[in-house]
């Protein structure tokens, strides 16, 4: 059995900043008033004033820094170790991007600044739009959506506007059974009904099933290509034709764009609307759950409906320099999806990334992502992993692949969850588990291009060791992890009696 002596971090019990609070302590020194200190209730009626300030913690600055620094060390992060979360594209986040995003010209620019005095920002957005258009193979781009899901919603609202413009009211949206949860969730928010399309044995869309479900009541088909199994759908041209024949739109979830940048373009595959996750393929740091951005690229026929405002480039007067502007005059636009222009700070970082890599660098990134995934898949096809964690679809993958833990469960009594928890002790972030739903005991692995061969080998070796260990004693993994700041947590308790704030 594993030694259960507590690690130093485990001995240090979680204490919130509120519990470190002592009345009278304080970090902030505020500026002098400089103006008359009129009693508040002479400025604002007492009935509209708070009687007690909110119970924020009272701590001095060194305490705050120490608290959050110590807290940060209870996190595993990408800068520290391998993080092969499928479909999240955890690639390295270059620090240059932070430096340029922090330039005051970007960071301290008010979004409502007059466009004539924000030309640098608007030009940057326009240049990013052009770059994404070229990468996606679709001419028109809106940077407004704040995340992939937001882009998906934009896409379906654009679809709705497109059909309404033709006097049609359609009610259904098709999505494969392997689709990411955001797809069906978005379908409902956009007022449509989800219809699932089956997956064939090659891992692609089951064409016969699609043919049966396609009709003039179908507004759109939402796909990701390569799909969540990491496989390029070789029938994509036929799929696009089927949808277009009945007048539907074809939507591309760009979560897996990292596989094809510079090699194949969703616009060329026949997609009408594409969202791109800047926090995936374009190196925006994941931030523990955002910020990101989900800009959309669309075909000519969808362009009139793009969100408002659009960043445009206007010709200079009298042959002068071109002028970048926010165009609000878009009568057919679906309107706004959020305030101001979008997550500009994310645009700065992504644009810096695109400039850094350039045309060939982006193509190389995708190539290396695909190489790394296939190599890791090949390593895991050997030894114990090959037997206990077979790949779900036996063909070359693209940038990610899915393994099934079904034999491992059957033969060793270990669930994919247990393998994941034991990987934590080995210093790795586990792959995505239990997704896609199509595969039993799924393990979705996406190494990305910024991992060395040594890193991939180390991961494969860890899996091998865990499986060997489990052959002798499956209990080890079942009780794992042992070395993390906390061990397995009681999620049932957390959900039955939710405690979502500190009682004060």
């Amino acid at each position, binding site marked *: 059995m594993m030694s259960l002596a507590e690690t130093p971090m485990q001995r240090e019990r979680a204490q*919130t900043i509120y519990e470190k609070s002592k009345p009278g302590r304080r*970090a*902030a020194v505020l*500026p002098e008033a400089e103006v008359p200190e009129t009693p508040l209730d002479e400025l*604002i009626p007492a*009935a*509209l*004033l708070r*009687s007690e300030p909110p*119970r924020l*913690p009272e701590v001095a600055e060194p305490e705050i820094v120490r608290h959050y620094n110590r*807290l*940060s060390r*209870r996190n*595993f992060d990408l800068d520290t170790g391998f993080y092969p979360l499928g479909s999240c594209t*955890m690639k390295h986040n270059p620090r240059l991007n932070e430096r340029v*995003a922090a330039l005051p010209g970007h960071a*301290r*620019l*008010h*979004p409502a*600044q007059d466009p004539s*005095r924000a030309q640098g920002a608007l030009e940057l957005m326009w240049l990013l739009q052009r*770059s994404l258009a070229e990468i996606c193979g679709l001419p028109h781009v809106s940077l407004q959506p*704040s*995340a*992939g*899901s937001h882009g998906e919603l934009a896409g379906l*609202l654009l679809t709705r506007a497109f059909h309404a413009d033709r006097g049609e009211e359609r009610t259904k949206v098709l999505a494969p059974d392997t689709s990411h949860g955001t797809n069906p*969730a978005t379908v*409902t928010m956009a*007022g449509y009904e989800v219809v699932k399309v089956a997956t064939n044995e090659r891992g692609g869309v089951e064409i016969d099933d699609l043919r049966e479900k396609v009709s003039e009541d179908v507004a759109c088909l939402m796909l990701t290509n390569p799909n969540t199994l990491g496989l390029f759908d*070789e029938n994509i041209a036929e799929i696009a034709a089927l949808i277009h024949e009945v007048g539907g739109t074809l939507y591309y979830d760009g979560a897996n764009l990292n596989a094809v940048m510079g*090699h194949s373009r969703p616009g060329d595959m026949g997609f009408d609307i594409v969202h791109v996750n800047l926090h995936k393929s374009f190196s925006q740091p994941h*931030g*523990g*759950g955002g910020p990101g951005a989900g800009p959309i690229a669309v075909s000519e026929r969808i362009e009139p409906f793009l969100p408002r405002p659009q960043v445009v480039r206007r010709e200079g007067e009298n042959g002068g320099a071109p002028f970048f502007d926010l165009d*609000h005059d878009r009568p057919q636009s679906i309107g*706004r999806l959020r*305030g*101001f*222009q*979008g997550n*500009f*700070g994310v645009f700065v970082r992504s644009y810096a990334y695109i*400039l*850094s890599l*350039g*045309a*060939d660098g*982006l193509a190389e990134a995708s190539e290396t992502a695909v190489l790394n995934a296939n*190599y890791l898949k*090949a390593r895991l096809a050997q030894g114990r992993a090959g037997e206990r964690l077979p790949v779900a679809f036996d063909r070359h993958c693209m940038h990610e692949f899915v393994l099934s833990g079904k034999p491992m469960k059957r033969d060793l009594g270990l669930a994919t969850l247990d393998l994941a*928890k034991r990987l934590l002790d080995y210093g790795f972030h586990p792959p*995505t588990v239990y997704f896609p739903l199509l595969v039993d005991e799924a393990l979705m692995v996406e190494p990305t291009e910024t991992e060395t061969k040594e890193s991939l080998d180390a991961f494969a070796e860890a899996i091998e060791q865990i499986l060997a260990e489990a052959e002798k004693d499956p209990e080890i993994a079942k009780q794992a992890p042992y070395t993390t700041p906390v061990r*397995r*947590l009681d999620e049932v308790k*957390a959900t039955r009696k939710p405690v*979502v*704030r500190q009682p004060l």
Partner: protein
Amino acid sequence: MLAAIGVDSVADLFEQVPEPLRLGRSLELPAGMSEAGVYERLAALAARNADAEEEVCFVGAGMYDHYVPAIVDAITQRSEFLTPYTPYQPEISQGGLQAMFEFQTAMSELTGLPVSNAGLYEGPSSVASAGYLAIGATGSRRFVVSRGVHPHSRETLATYAVGFGAEVVEVGLEGGVTDAAALAEAVDGETAAVILQSPNFLGAVEDVEALGAAAKEHGALLVVAADPMTLGILRPPGEQGADVALGEGQPLGNRLDFGGPSFGFFCATEELIRRMPGRIAGETDDVDGRRGFVLALQTREQHIRREKATHNICTAQALNALGAMIHLAWLGREGFRELGELLARRTAYARERLAAVDGVELLHEAPVVREFAIRLEAPVERVLATVAAERGIAAGYPLGREYPEHEDGLLVAITERRTRAQIDALAEAIGAAVAESGAIVGNSATKAPEGVG
């Protein structure tokens, strides 16, 4: 590596891409650049923006030039917070999860409502998200929204409402605040939510409790958008009957960044917890009894609930919410209150100074905290251009585009960075620009009545 895979070249791995779909050429993008080269290029772009270091910023409209303390960056730039993703493996994400829990507690305190999520994208789309929640909670599909709510929020709500199949009814303002009679008239038994903002877009503090009575009467949810920086001194929405309190979080710990990334905060009553959008961190214990945190109530979310999820959100704005928490901890209980008082006093001073300027009038006299609206007897855009060019001041947000009835209106915002001297300079600059404009255009700088040549 190729040998291990069993192929001769990487190109073999791309064979699954049908030949006609292979790009077959380089992307038409410039070649990659050195780090220094990229830096120079981005710096050159940045240099063409008149940011708040170049032009004294009195522009608000939802995002404000507050002073963000240095420790926010020092902490949010740490690899451990910057580079992980959503805490799906809680054992190695206690840092992020506990930070969310602390943030949720803070926002709950600010709004006076017991439940907070870990954040949404930003303010206006959070209003739309509240609309979605209200539809689920009431079964009705009609929203009544005050024109005091941020125009971007109203526009976003209208966009989302098309997908919801919901009707949006707007109620006007009177004297700078929501017309109470018109609101009461507009709310009916089919209303899912009444949506207000306080302080409203024109800076006025609204009597949310009184206005909210109409919602209560008809079983509609009361949704209140608030400026978080004012919640140190204003009575919180939760104490005024709000079912949902939300808003733009940027003033807390986040830069202007030309409009994003920031975050939206979203708080609600206990009854609505299962309808909440977004991530929620919850407290629990591990197998050895150690205190820890996990993502709670995940069955609400898209990755489990799919088409029946309370929202489609996945990636949110976690790092920005962390920045907010650090800023709030830095201000602390007393500091936060003091900052609110400082804002209110400086704003009162600014409002008085500007009202005393020739050619300037207050647009309304409702109580304000940190932003107020004035009327200019000169074309607003011209005054703004003059003041910027000649004095290096961004004087405010022109109201005309979104409030055609206030074509002569200007919204002026105050933060703790706006010193008395800067406020005096603003008043002087506007006065001069209005006078100059009047001298050119003649005595009346207002629009000629229709039909007059």
